[in-house]
């Protein structure tokens, strides 16, 4: 990266962050709370993105982990525990759920991983739905108030924004650490990493814990936002929507989860006021993006930028070449050893 492009890049990022911090002073309270929803959704999407982008593992059950954390917090709140007790319970539930997800998924990849995580999400949903003495059943647990200091909607927005920034930066750091590089190695060729002596399942398990921690943060923030949780939070629809956000935004891109979440939230909460068939439109948009912009919106745009810049000598870089065009050898192995 040349010095000039770096300057441009960091200026843009700084400007965006500055705008994000100014928005609550400009927008009405409803739009600020919509932004909070989008950011929380983006955090959950980021937790899926860290797995998908680094390890090539696409989850269809992450809402389950977030919901587990949320139920932990809400349950502890209803028991009258103090803030630290509530957060401790949320953490405990996050760890339990992540370990469960990790254990049953660490030996899988590709489609199997997707289905196993979907199954895990269904189990969490089932527990939330059925164990009504603890979870409140379908009625859920209402009246979970935010602690003082973030009780106002704008205070909460700043908390969510900070959380999003910290999570995003942390995930970039993870992606560039040796752990992240190993995950990318596993994504590109699992067999090679095995023969190099890496304990592949252990790495996948670790990645799930990292991802689960992020999902847990999203779960706590989601409960604080709506002051409520119900089994819907763990459902298939929720997991699928989060996955759609990631894919729509661009798997493996830094801004993808935010862009995808923003788009889906806009459809869900704004378009739905004027157009009843918003879900169909979202589905069609998603289908089109899978076919015509497989790297997602962010991937597509940065591809475009790179193509324009190619004249200035910067070599193009395929964002998701590996993700979407597994080398034939890899695919072959996956068939032979079954």
């Amino acid at each position, binding site marked *: 990266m040349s010095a000039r492009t770096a300057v441009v890049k960091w200026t843009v990022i700084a400007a965006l962050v500055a705008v994000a911090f100014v928005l609550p002073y400009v927008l009405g309270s409803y739009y600020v709370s919509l932004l909070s929803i989008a950011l929380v959704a983006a955090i959950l999407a980021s937790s899926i993105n860290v797995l998908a982008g680094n390890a090539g593992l*696409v989850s269809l059950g992450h809402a389950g982990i977030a919901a587990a954390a949320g139920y932990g917090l809400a349950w502890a709140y209803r028991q009258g525990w103090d803030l630290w007790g509530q957060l401790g319970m949320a953490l405990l539930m996050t760890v339990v759920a992540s370990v469960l997800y990790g*254990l*049953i998924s660490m*030996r*899988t990849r*590709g*489609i*199997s991983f*997707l*289905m*196993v995580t*979907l*199954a*895990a999400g*269904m*189990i969490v949903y*089932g527990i939330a*739905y*059925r164990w009504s003495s603890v979870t409140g059943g379908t009625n859920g647990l209402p009246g979970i108030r935010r602690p003082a200091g973030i009780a106002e909607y704008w205070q909460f927005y700043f908390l969510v924004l900070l959380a999003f920034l910290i999570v995003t930066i942390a995930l970039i750091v993870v992606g560039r650490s040796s752990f992240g590089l190993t995950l990318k190695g596993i994504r590109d060729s699992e067999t090679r990493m095995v023969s190099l002596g890496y304990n592949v399942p252990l790495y996948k398990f670790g990645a799930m814990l990292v991802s689960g921690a992020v999902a847990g943060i999203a779960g706590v923030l989601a409960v604080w936002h709506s002051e409520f949780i119900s089994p819907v939070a763990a459902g*298939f*629809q929720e997991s*699928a929507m989060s*996955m*759609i956000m990631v*894919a729509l935004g661009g*798997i493996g891109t830094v801004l993808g989860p935010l862009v995808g979440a923003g788009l889906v939230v806009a459809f869900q909460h704004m378009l739905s006021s004027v157009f*009843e*068939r918003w*879900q*169909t439109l*979202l*589905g*069609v948009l*998603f*289908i089109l993006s*899978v*076919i015509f912009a*497989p790297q997602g919106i962010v991937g597509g745009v940065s591809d475009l930028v790179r193509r324009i810049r190619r004249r200035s000598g910067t070599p193009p870089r395929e964002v998701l070449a590996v*993700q*979407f*065009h*597994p080398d034939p050898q890899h*695919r072959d192995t996956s*068939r032979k*050893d*079954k």
Partner: protein
Amino acid sequence: MSGVFLLQQLLNGISFGALLFLIASGFTLVFGLMRISNLAHGAFYLVGAYLAVVTVAATHSFWLGLLVGAVAAAVVGLGLERGLLRRVRGREMPEVLLTVGVLFVIADLVLWIFGGDPKSVNSGNGAPSGALVIGDFTYPQYRLFIIGVTLVIGVALFLAQRYSKFGAIVRAGVDNREAASALGIDIDRVFTWVFVLGAALAGIAGAIGSGLLSLSPTSGTEMLLYAMVVVIVGGLGSITGAAVGAVLIGLIDAFTKVLFPEFAYFTIFAPMGLVLVFRPQGLFGRAA
């Protein structure tokens, strides 16, 4: 617990399991050959079911409804395979993502067209209805009919896969796609036909299932989840596995609701959880 009651529960479990097999068979067939986890399978169920409901109401012929449902689902399947999936062929993730999008769109359109009130295929109209009574024992004929139809379809699938030329081609495709192509088999065409067959099976399941369980636009997702549970328990891609998994879950479901009612919700998911932990490839899956 009387003998009559036990027999009833046994049949309840088997007939529900039969429906589960009908739903899961197409899913597992497509997965076995094409490695596509087709989440739009639930949408095919919806299409088949709603069109069967409308047709039976209009023509008073169950069999015509079944035919229309199966054909409609097959046509939608053909459109999905030729129009969309072909464009991303061989790339696992885009394939799944596409089918998720299709499920969302079709479920929403079904709500728009047919409304959200419960609907079902009217009983009778050429399909068995009423109760079979033998002494103390009574049992609904339609449920026995489902068991029968499923047996016929299951056996036909099994035989076709094992003994027909088409089955041989499919099996060749499963084992080694490149070699099959090298032998001059048009693997693309085989894919299309298998996909359409899978969709038709979902349509049949929809037409038959909506005589047993009332339909709503969310039935698609529910049935999809059932199908996935069955194939995870039975083993991805295995028809035998789907059959065993379906009946197993049907029986566990029926008897848990009687013996341990407090676990009723987990009858579907607990077996799946146990399988995932202790035998991740499923009962009849080959080790990954």
